[in-house]
């Protein structure tokens, strides 16, 4: 039976899905056309036009998908699942773009869109590289557009279509409401969408994802060139065009990641700008590898060394981007990360995506046809095994095989240079620097991947192997491998662990950044080298020692315990290295380059990076949580760290000491902005003047955004000074008091909150906002009771009320029915001290149950906040470093372009 749905506009979805299919098909044929060009007809104009028009059609289709989705959101077509879930009517227009990429499909679309744009640029500019590079890029597009297809082949579900109607969504199929022809007007839910997650309603959501995804998309370009180079056997020439793209990628992805940090710091309540969250790590790792790749490519351009490493790093960067997408979108991290997506059924598709490009890359790195055939054979077996449902084991085999093939390919078949780098040459140390970056990336990646490692360890044969290891060796670590159940530990420990590893890596990188520019290619006169660096070395030592003394090893150092002492020592070394790096690069800039800024891109970028590191070290290691647990209860006995007392309880009007300030929670204000209610909490910070009188220094207004659909979101407020930031956010506030801000005056006149009904029996527990009540007894009253009267039946209910101090009070509520008229009356049970009232208003006839209204007293007592406040010293150094680094890279890009143009003419 065909139902004619009223009010649905299916044309939108059909158009959108048409574009998706068109994008997929054109990408597919663009691959074929371009591959054909590379193999047979590189100079054939007809094929060139065919390939180009296919790709242009593809790009237009992708833009079409994006535009359709955007217009659907603007037109409020809530019959579509994506629109309903990510947007709503009264949302301001500036969040419309954010709605498009909030969801999983939308973020894929954003990636797709950037690739399309980059592809159009590449098509125009890459000349003889056009065909191979466009083949690779189109191939990536095939996989990405497949993720939006949303079609079924029997049981196999490919992609998730953002243009799906709400009623056709798999989880809704067959539900009764999908059979109602006028469901759109009948069901209130469809009148408005759910809207953007309140945490995401800010300008960061408009600028951060596009930047990050542009960074992601840019990493595809060096990858495409590397694959193209391997494929066409032009092992050397691909690097020249790819290097500029790699630089742009380093800049954009770097900015994208730091924007994420800035967002987290400014408007999310993570308590800082970097939490080593798996999702953050997943984008940092490819960046580190890309930085390594860019350096090694530069090295190769200048010296002709480390060719294999350039291939390896460019390929690894892209594969890691795909892997990071897998980590965030497959749901595998949902137990370890706060902001990973949950499983959308894309798991398998993403794994195939990853596996395919791994196979393709390693195939080209095998350099020998026999090896290639064996490897492809293994890949086919792996694929069959994968389709059979053995995901973990097939990926594990592919990973091992790829590693092995790559090593054999390199050792046996790869043409290597005979000449060895001199120990005192720039190329040697730059190479080492790239390797250190790779090691740092590996450490982060491996630790982040613990859920994946668990999956691998659960493979039967791997499991048996480690069981065998354990039974023969009895090593303690092997039992963990057998359990295959590793979890990252609590967040403090995770951060500590990353810091312990990454600070030494950063130290080495900073040292290399300082010295490497002073090396010359080929060979360096060591004496000259030492003389040039000696001054910066000495000055940085002179700066660092007192600085470190002042910030770490001052009088408070004795209170520092445990591993934090170790971290302080590591930080001191890192501070030295980064200051040394800063000075040495500045010295290089002025003495050797004589201030020629056009050529100073590298130095300026390195100075920026050094400043960034200084900022990170100071602001994180000296982050001071000034809010303290000022309560009577000592909680240190519960915890080994004894440091969980990071929140302050502020009652309205009270003034408490917090750090160097006195703070008062003065009032709350309810504001409605863009249709969303916010509650601001005004917290005054007072300082003592010379005369001993406290006066208002400044007011911070951390706030909570109220959202009935998605829950309330707390957002911080920060006071910026030049040398430090004071950062506050609301950890907890009584939900009832949020609602009551509407009218303070009304609240005061009204003694009790809105009543809540409970159907209860003797022995039941009622849990309320300010207390817990146990129904002690329910009984019929007789003449011994003071409330007894002859005309009425009377029932009493007694409650034991526990407040926070576990003090017990017994109170009684009565319910009377007139024997003749049947009129009822109640006598409430009230506990004034705790502020709670019970009204016994109904008897359930057969079940021995009664109905009771509870109401909590609305008093000044409920008006409090639990707040965390931290000082981040020197955080502006961090932002400044970021800016300088971006400028430096930009100068380097411009210079690179100029050089490339010179080479051509």
């Amino acid at each position: 039976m065909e139902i004619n749905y009223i009010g649905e506009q299916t044309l939108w979805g059909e158009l959108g899905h048409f574009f998706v299919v068109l994008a997929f098909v054109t990408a597919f044929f663009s691959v074929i056309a371009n591959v054909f060009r590379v193999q047979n007809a590189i100079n054939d104009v007809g094929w060139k036009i065919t390939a180009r028009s296919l790709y242009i059609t593809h790009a237009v289709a992708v833009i079409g998908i994006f535009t359709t989705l955007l217009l659907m959101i603007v037109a409020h077509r809530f019959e579509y699942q994506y629109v309903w879930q990510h947007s709503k009517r009264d949302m301001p227009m500036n969040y419309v773009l954010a709605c498009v990429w909030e969801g999983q499909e939308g973020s894929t679309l954003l990636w797709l869109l950037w690739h399309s744009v980059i592809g159009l640029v590449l098509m125009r500019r890459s000349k003889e590289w056009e065909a191979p590079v466009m083949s690779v890029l189109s191939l990536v597009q095939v996989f990405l557009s497949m993720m939006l297809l949303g079609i079924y082949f029997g049981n196999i579900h490919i992609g998730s279509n953002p243009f799906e109607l709400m009623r056709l969504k798999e989880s809704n199929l067959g539900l009764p409401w999908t059979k109602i022809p006028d469901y759109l007007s009948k069901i209130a839910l469809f009148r408005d969408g759910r809207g953007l997650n309140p945490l995401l309603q800010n300008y960061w959501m408009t600028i951060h994802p596009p930047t990050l995804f542009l960074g992601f998309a840019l990493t595809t370009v060096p990858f495409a060139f590397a694959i193209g180079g391997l494929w066409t056997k032009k092992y050397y020439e691909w690097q020249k065009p790819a290097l500029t793209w790699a630089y742009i990628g380093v800049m954009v992805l770097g900015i994208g990641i730091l924007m994420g940090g800035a967002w987290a710091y400014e408007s999310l309540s993570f308590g800082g700008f970097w939490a080593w969250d798996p999702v953050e790590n997943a984008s940092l790792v490819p960046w580190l590898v890309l930085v390594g790749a860019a350096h090694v490519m530069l090295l190769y351009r200048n010296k002709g060394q480390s060719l294999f490493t350039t291939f390896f790093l460019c390929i690894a960067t892209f594969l890691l981007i795909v892997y990071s997408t897998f980590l965030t979108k497959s749901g595998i991290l949902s137990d370890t990360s706060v902001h990973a997506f949950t499983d959308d059924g894309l798991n398998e598709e993403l794994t195939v995506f990853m596996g395919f490009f791994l196979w393709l890359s390693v195939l080209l790195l095998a350099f020998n046809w026999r090896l290639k055939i064996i490897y492809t054979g293994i890949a086919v077996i792996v694929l069959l095994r994968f389709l059979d449902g053995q995901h973990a084991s097939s990926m594990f085999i592919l990973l091992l095989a790829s590693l092995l093939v790559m090593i054999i390919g390199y050792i046996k078949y790869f043409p290597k240079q005979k000449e060895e780098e001199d120990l005192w040459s720039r190329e040697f140390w730059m190479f080492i620097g790239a390797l250190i970056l790779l090691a740092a990336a590996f450490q982060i990646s491996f630790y982040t991947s613990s859920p994946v490692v668990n999956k691998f360890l659960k493979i039967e044969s791997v499991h048996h192997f480690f069981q065998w290891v354990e039974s023969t060796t009895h090593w303690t670590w092997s039992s963990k491998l057998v359990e295959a159940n590793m979890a990252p530990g609590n967040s403090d420990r995770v951060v500590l662990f990353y810091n312990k590893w990454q600070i030494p890596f950063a130290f080495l990188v900073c040292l290399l950044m300082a010295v490497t520019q002073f090396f010359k290619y080929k060979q360096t006169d060591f004496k000259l080298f030492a003389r040039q660096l000696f001054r910066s070395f000495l000055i940085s030592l002179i700066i660092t020692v007192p600085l470190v003394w002042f910030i770490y090893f001052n009088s408070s150092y004795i209170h520092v315990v445990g591993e934090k002492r170790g971290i302080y020592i590591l930080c001191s070394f890192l501070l030295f290295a980064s200051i040394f790096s800063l000075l040495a690069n500045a010295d290089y800039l002025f003495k050797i380059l004589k201030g020629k800024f056009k050529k100073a891109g590298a130095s300026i970028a390195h100075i920026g990076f050094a400043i960034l590191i200084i900022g990170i070290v100071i602001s994180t290691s000296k982050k001071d949580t000034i809010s303290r647990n000022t309560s009577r209860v000592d909680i240190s006995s519960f915890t080994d760290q004894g440091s969980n007392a990071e929140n302050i309880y502020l009652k309205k009007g009270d003034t408490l000491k917090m750090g160097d300030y006195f703070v008062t929670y003065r009032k709350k204000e309810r504001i409605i902005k863009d249709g969303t209610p916010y509650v601001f909490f005004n917290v005054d910070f007072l300082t003592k003047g010379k005369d001993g009188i406290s006066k208002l220094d400044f007011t911070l207004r951390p706030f909570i955004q109220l959202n009935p659909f998605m829950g309330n979101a707390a957002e911080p407020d920060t006071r910026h000074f030049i040398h430090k930031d004071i950062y506050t956010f609301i950890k907890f506030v009584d939900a009832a008091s949020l609602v009551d801000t509407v009218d303070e005056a009304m609240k005061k006149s009204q003694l009790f909150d809105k009543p809540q009904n409970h159907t209860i029996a003797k022995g039941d527990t009622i849990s309320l906002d300010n207390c817990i009540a146990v129904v002690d007894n329910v009984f019929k009253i007789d003449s011994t009771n003071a409330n007894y009267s002859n005309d009425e039946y009377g029932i009493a209910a007694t409650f034991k009320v526990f407040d926070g101090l576990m003090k017990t009070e017994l109170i009684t509520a009565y319910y009377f029915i007139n024997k003749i008229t049947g009129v009822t009356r109640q006598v409430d049970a009230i506990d004034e001290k705790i502020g709670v009232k019970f009204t016994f208003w109904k008897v359930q006839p057969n079940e021995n149950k009664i109905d009771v209204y509870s109401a909590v007293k609305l008093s000044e007592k409920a008006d409090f906040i639990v707040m965390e406040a931290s000082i981040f010293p020197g955080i502006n150094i961090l932002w400044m470093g970021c800016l300088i680094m971006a400028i430096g890279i930009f100068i380097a890009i411009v210079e690179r372009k100029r050089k490339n143009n010179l080479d051509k003419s």
Partner: protein
Amino acid sequence: MKKTHIVLILIIAIGIGSMFTLLGNSSTYADFKEAMESKEEVHVAGTLDRTKPMEYNPEINPNKFSFYMLDRNGNGKHVILLKSKPNDFERSQQVVIVGSIKGNDFVANDILMKCPSKYNDGKLIVAK
């Protein structure tokens, strides 16, 4: 042997070292029964037991919040979280707590919550 090879081997050694420290530094996922046996820090995933009371008295201690939780096998335990009560805790669908058993309670020093507010699956349940 070339210098680069020596460095490469060193780097690989660091890599393998970092793999082993993962073992030393990770805790494990467990249910309450296993947590009772191990006494070490574990992660327990489960859901909030809505039938039992939660307790949070910030006036006395803003850094202590207790509730009852069911692990994935449905076994319940009283949990003391040494942090403030997470906003919207009542709405949580899934909770992961990090900590260890002390006496009769599970003392948690960290919590991860999955709320419907985070990237939700778009399921629509209409009462009809």
